[in-house]
């Protein structure tokens, strides 16, 4: 009698155990592997699974692709997927052609920027006309690069430094 009771207990316990094991299905690792396999070839997407919750991250080119990946993950994981958190970022593909070259054609704006910059070079004077910056005065050679870099950054049509007397 006692023995039977114990056997029943054990049987009942194992039944419960196997039932719950069946209910929880695949482990997180297995589920992750399964979804990753389904998404083979999508190198910019990463899959994480935490207690049945699938987290998708990475970058794709369109919203359509983002949704497509989510549905692939859902299908692949089937009943084992408790929920899906889709953190995939949609980012438009990078333009292959660089931006066209722009040159400043507004003397007032360019002049103001030049004046601001030239405050650090009191020994020379600059003027702006038709997008061309002309500088005159005396300057140490070591400072010429800094001057030219700063003026080139303002995208002028031309920087004329021929009026500068260079001090060695």
């Amino acid at each position, binding site marked *: 009698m006692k023995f039977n009771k114990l056997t029943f207990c054990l049987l009942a316990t194992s039944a419960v155990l196997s039932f719950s094991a069946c209910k929880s299905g695949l482990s997180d690792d297995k589920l992750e592997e399964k979804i990753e396999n389904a998404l083979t070839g999508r190198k910019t997407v990463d899959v994480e699974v935490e207690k049945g919750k699938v987290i998708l991250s990475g970058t794709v080119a369109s919203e359509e692709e983002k949704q497509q990946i989510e549905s692939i993950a859902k299908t692949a994981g089937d009943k084992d997927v408790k929920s899906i958190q889709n953190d995939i970022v949609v980012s438009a593909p990078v333009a292959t052609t*660089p*931006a*066209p*070259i722009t*040159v400043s054609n507004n003397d007032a704006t360019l002049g103001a*920027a030049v004046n*601001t*910059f030239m*405050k650090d070079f009191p020994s020379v004077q600059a003027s702006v006309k038709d997008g061309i910056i002309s500088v005159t005065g005396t300057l140490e*050679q070591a*400072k*010429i*690069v*800094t001057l*030219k*870099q*700063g003026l*080139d*950054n*303002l*995208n*002028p*049509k*031309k*920087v*004329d*430094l*021929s009026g*500068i007397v*260079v001090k060695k």
Partner: protein
Amino acid sequence: MSLQEKYKVLLDTAQSSGVNDLNYAEMDGVLQIRGTAPTADVKNKLWEIYGNIDPNFQTGDVVLNVDVATEVPGSQVKVITENSNLNIRKGPGTDQPIVGKAAKGEIITLISKANEQWWLVRTNDNEEGYCYAQYLESV
């Protein structure tokens, strides 16, 4: 000789040292060059080559506007003034009040770029404000 031939070494170096979005065109007798250098070293090297071809930039037949890719928000930048402190201002412009100073050689944090000339920075003393980008270089 065309300007692209005259500055061939400069353009070739820009290409081979990985300058991104490199673009150049001759406009009104001036070779306009744009791009993003991977490091400050590459940018400095390009300027050195340019200076060798056109000593003291006397000819003025090039406008070289290359910025540095590593100078992005959140990165560390070094103050490269001649010898004075770098003024940090409340807003982007020399008419703005000075709210702090950064010493020559000091390494500070670039928070964002208001425009090509004025960058928002934070010093190690947690002073925050705008300073002139010309005096900052990525580390």
